[in-house]
Every structure is written in C-alpha cells, then in structure tokens.
C-alpha cells in the first residue's frame, strides 16, 4: 500500500452534517486478503472520501422528489457477522432458485459461501469479485466503478465503492454465448448489517450472458441494508441481461443502482423485481453509446402493507439509431407507496432515436399511493419517443369474467394482478427464470389479504 493511500484511509472522517442520523464513521469492512491491488485500495479510499464529501439526499433535489428521506437515515451499520450455518442457506437458494444454471454463487453477509462454475464455457471469467481483483487486476480496473451515479444515488455509490468486496465479476470473451443464466444469491442477517452486492458484467463482441441476482434475508426480524451496484457492458453485438430479484424481509432496506453501457448493435436488459423490503431505492441508467444499441428496462413490483418502492430511471441516447424501451409495473395494496421517475434524454446529434417509456400502476386499495413522473428531453431530429404513466384498478368486468368461469373472487383478483405483473416479466429471456419469478409472485399473492 502506498503512503498516499494510507494517509487517505487514516483520515478521521467527520460524519456528513446533512446526513441525518448516526452515519458511518469508517468504511464498513470485513476480512480481506492482504495483496489486493493498489489501484483498488486507492480507488476505494477515494470513494470513501467522496462518500463523506457528497451531500446526503435533500428534499429540494429533483432526484429525491416525493422520496421519503426518513428512509435514508441509517444508524451505524456494519458488514455483519460470519454466518456459520450455511447449509440451510444453500438448500433454500437451490430450492427456490433456478435448476439449470451455468454458475451459481451464494454470499452471506458479504462473504462467499458457495461457488459452482461447472457449466461455464471455456474462456469465460466468472469469479467472485475478490478473486478477480487478485487474478485479473488490470481487466477489472478497466471496468470497475467507471460510471457515475446520475440519479441521486452518488453517496450510496461512493459508499458501495468504498466497501464492496462482495459479488461477481463476469467477462465473456468474443462470440461466446452462455446459454444458461448465472445465479447469484446475497443473504443478509443481523440487525444493522449492510451488504454490498456488486455485479460487473462485460460481454465482448457477439458474446451473450444472463445474470440473476437474488437478495434475501436470513430471518424475518433483522433490519439490514443492502447497497448493491450492477454495471453491465454489452460491447459491439453483445448481449447482457441482468435481473435483481429482491425479496428481503419487511424490516430491511435496499438501494440498488444499475448501469448499462450499450455498444454498437448490442443489447442490454436490466430488470428489477421487488417482492419484499420495507423501503427500496432503485436507480437504473442505460447509456446507448453507438448505433444499433438496444436497451430494455423492466420492473415488476408488488407492494403491500407500508412498503415503499422508489425507482428512478434514465434512458440516455448518446448516438444515432439507438433504441430503448422501458416498462415498469407496480401492483399496490394497503398503504403501499411507489415512486417512478423516468427520463428519456436524447442527446444532441442522437438522431433517429426510438425511445419508449411506460409506467403502469394497479391500485388494489384506496390508500395506496403511486407517484409517476415520466419525462422527455430531446435534442435531436427524426426521433420517435413516447412516454406515459397510468394508474387504475381492476375492472369489475374482468372480475366478472373470471368468476363466471367458477373462479372465486379473491383468486380472480390475484390472477388479474399477477397477470398485470407478468406482462413485464414476459420480456425477460429464459423460460425457467420467468417461471421462477411468476412462482414467487404467486406465493406472495397467496398470502396477501
């Protein structure tokens, strides 16, 4: 470690004044190898510094409009204890996860507890981040934490960068297609535990890969925080699909920041499925950097009780002849609250852009609140764009139709609501993945009052 780095790390940080509540006083760390590359140590030291410098979310910030800022008051958090009993976690992950995978990783409180990589084609690097930092430091360096957080989550991104040694690094070489998905499960437990799931996924020209990440709680009572970041880069003609399936307990909170950088004729699919948690903040940015780039952004969310889901998106068209399509769907019950704020931004010169954005809300209760803020900024010509947000209830006619076939009222409502969410899921590649997500929704709907 260089002296400069040591110096930065030893700075006694002042808790950020704007951040209400008892914020961290040192980067949350757990045991790590001694020979981590120096660029990484420098980068994370800078990230910690940046975390301290960056103001906390504040009400007048457009990116935090309608947000419940109480939810970003975090008491001092820690990386969590080592989880001893890993067999039940592994069993549960297997049972509820995908059967047919190219690789599977399980993390508990930031630490790897299982790694299976037998199904990977030759030439693919698919490793826990910590291993990749040691084995392929220069390759990781080129891609690691390169994208700024543009939608208000810069402070969280910095904290993530200062702490993460959890998650995976995937690099798929030219023209290699990984048919089966890679599944990564992150478990969190212990009051105040913070986990930092990281996914860095690069598909070179003509390569293709799908990653499914699952965020789970070790028990139903502990309040944990997940600060995850996924960086997806399909290069020319490459394809990357990434879905984060969040099913945390109802005391836990999650911040998940997704970024895609889509190259020439490349395709990215970036999805969120939210089933659990007390509060979540999702930010998803897709940059379309070269002609032929194609980006799909999807989300299916089921919120009940007093859950709050806050989602912000940006479709950034930087080049001509690019395509993006976003579909976010929320089914809300009880006092649940959702926020969707999405911007399509067509940069000067990005002519012949096609960009679409839809947010649809299904209100299952009069007290539920769905906020939608769609937006467009166009600085180019020959552009096709549309955006829209709708909120509605299940129609009596639909219920009547199902009941007239003998389906009881409650089951009919469930089926219609689930069908509503399935529409977003149906755009994901992988039948087993779609079925598994539908199954989770079905279980979730079954216990809904």
């Amino acid at each position, binding site marked *: 470690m260089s002296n400069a780095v040591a110096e930065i790390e030893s700075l006694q940080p002042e808790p950020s004044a704007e951040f209400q509540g008892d914020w961290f006083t040192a980067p949350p760390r757990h045991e790590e190898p001694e020979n981590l590359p120096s660029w990484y140590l420098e980068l994370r030291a800078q990230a910690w510094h940046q975390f301290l410098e960056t103001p906390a979310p504040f009400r007048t910030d457009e990116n935090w409009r309608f947000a419940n800022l109480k939810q970003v008051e975090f008491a001092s958090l820690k990386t969590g204890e080592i989880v001893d009993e890993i067999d039940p976690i592994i069993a549960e992950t297997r049972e509820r996860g995908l059967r047919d995978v190219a690789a599977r990783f399980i993390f508990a409180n930031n630490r790897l507890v299982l790694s299976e990589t037998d199904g990977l084609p030759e030439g693919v690097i698919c490793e826990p981040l910590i291993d990749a930092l040691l084995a392929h430091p220069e390759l990781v360096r080129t891609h690691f934490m390169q994208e700024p957080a543009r939608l208000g989550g810069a402070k969280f991104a910095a904290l993530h960068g200062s702490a993460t040694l959890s998650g995976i690094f995937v690099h798929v070489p030219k023209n290699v297609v990984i048919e089966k998905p890679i599944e990564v499960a992150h478990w969190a437990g212990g009051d105040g535990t913070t986990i930092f799931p990281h996914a860095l996924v690069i598909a070179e020209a003509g390569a293709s890969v799908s990653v499914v990440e699952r965020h789970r709680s070790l028990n139903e009572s502990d309040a944990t925080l997940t600060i995850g970041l996924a960086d997806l880069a399909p290069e020319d003609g490459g394809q990357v699909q990434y879905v984060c399936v969040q099913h945390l307990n109802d005391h836990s909170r999650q911040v998940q920041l997704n970024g895609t950088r889509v190259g020439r004729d490349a395709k990215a699919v970036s999805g969120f499925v939210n089933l659990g948690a007390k509060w979540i903040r999702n930010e998803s940015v897709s940059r379309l950097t070269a002609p032929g780039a194609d980006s799909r952004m999807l989300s299916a969310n089921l919120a009940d009780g007093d859950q709050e889901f806050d989602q912000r998106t940006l479709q950034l068209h930087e080049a001509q002849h690019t395509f993006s399509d976003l579909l976010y769907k929320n089914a809300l019950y009880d006092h649940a609250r959702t926020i969707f704020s999405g911007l399509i931004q067509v940069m000067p010169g990005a002519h012949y852009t096609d960009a679409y954005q839809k947010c649809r809300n299904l209100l299952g209760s009069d007290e539920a609140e769905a906020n939608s803020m769609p937006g467009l900024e166009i600085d180019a010509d020959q552009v096709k764009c549309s955006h829209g947000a709708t909120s509605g209830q299940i129609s*009596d*006619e*639909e219920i*009547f*139709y*199902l*009941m*007239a*076939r*003998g*389906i*009881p*009222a409650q*089951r*009919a409502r469930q*089926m*219609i609501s*689930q*069908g*509503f*969410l*399935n*529409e977003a899921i*149906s755009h994901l590649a992988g039948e087993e993945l779609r079925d598994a997500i539908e199954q989770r929704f079905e279980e979730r709907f079954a216990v809904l009052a």
Partner: protein
Amino acid sequence: MNQSLSINDLHVSVDGTEIIKGLTLDIPKGEVHAIMGPNGSGKSTLAKVLAGNEEYEITGGSVLMDGQDLLGMEIDERSRAGLFLAFQYPHEIPGVSNANFLRAALQARLPKGEEIDAVAFYKQMYARMDELEMDRKFTGRSVNEGFSGGEKKRNEILQMMMLEPTYAILDETDSGLDIDALRIVSQGVNAMRSPERGFLVITHYQRLLDYIVPDKVHVMFDGRIIRSGDKELALELEEKGYDWVKEELAA
C-alpha cells in the same frame, strides 16, 4: 326435482329503469332454446343476469336451476353449479395465459387439497382445440388479448367444452363470425348437445339457427317473451322482420 333452467316472472332494472318485465321461460335438459329479438329487447341483459352480473337489480321473480335457487348464488358458485355463459364481448385478461385460466377454472371445481392432473388437462385441452381448429399457440397467449372476434368466440366455446356445464347460455356467439368460424363454432356446440345439457342460444339473426337447430324459438321484445314456437318461427321472423311481431302484438 324439475330438471330444467326455469325462469319465472323475472323483473330486472338498471338505474331505476325496468329492462326485463316479467319474463318466464323453461329450458329443460336436453333441449336447445333460442331467443331472438331486436336490439334493446333485453336479451343480453337476461344472459348477464343469469350469470350473476351485479350491475343489474332483480326486482322480482325467480330462477331455478334443477330446483336450486340460482339468484341466491354468487357468480362463481353459479358456474361451479353448472351454468355457463359464452360472452358476447369476452374480456381480455393481460398476462394470464389461456391455459392457466382454464386450469384455474377447473381447479376451482375440485375439492380443497386436490390438484388437477396437468397431463390429462393438456391432453383434453389440445383435443378440444383441434376440434375447434384452434392453433396450439393460443394456450400460451394471454386470455383473449389480441384475438380476432372469431378467435374470441372460439375461445368461449373452448371454455364451454372444457367446463362441461349443465346449462349453457350463448350470448350472440354468432356476431362477428365469418361463415367458416360460424360453422366451426356451431359444430363445437352441436357436439356438446346431450340429454344431460340444456342450451339457451341468444341471437339477433336466424343464420346461426341453420347451424344450431333449436327445439324451441322464443321472440323477446321489450323485456318479455312475446311469442314462442318451433324452429319455423325463426324462418318466419327472418322473412317478415321484427316489425311483424310488434304489429301483431299491438293488434
């Protein structure tokens, strides 16, 4: 017990306006009855009321299905008890596949804890779809979403075939069908005719009754049955038009 769908002096209102004004009709098992009538005579209201649509207020009369009080039952109970309505305008249910929809309907008929046999279910469904000349791709598509008018009607008949009701009401199933679809749909209905099943076929046009030959024809006008007869009545009506009945009624 009376083995029929028996409607007795039924009165129905919507928003205070009476639409069905004392209608009496008995459809015994094994028979096909047709109701014809001009637009606005209350035909479709009758169909929806029988299925249990709550938009309508029943102000008098009774409906017994094999002796059971139909009007006292919930919508889904009526279906499980053996009543089926083929909708004039079948609803689209986005994101719910046709197969899952049918499966849920059949599952609802099983005792608690019992699971439907998936293999037998698909086998039966495919056989029925073949009869109706429906492409297999319809099993995975969302219920009625993006279906043409004819495809929707076929889908209604598919549901009827799968649910095997005791009494089936077909509400203007012929509307929007071309001649080929009409033939296929009618074949489906005819294949279901049995001594154990009664049909009420509601239509505006006589054409359907060339394919589904009724045992009795009733003419409905202004919320009542004003005339009943055999299948010849339908032909007479086609020839002379509805004004003929209205004039006779006025005379």
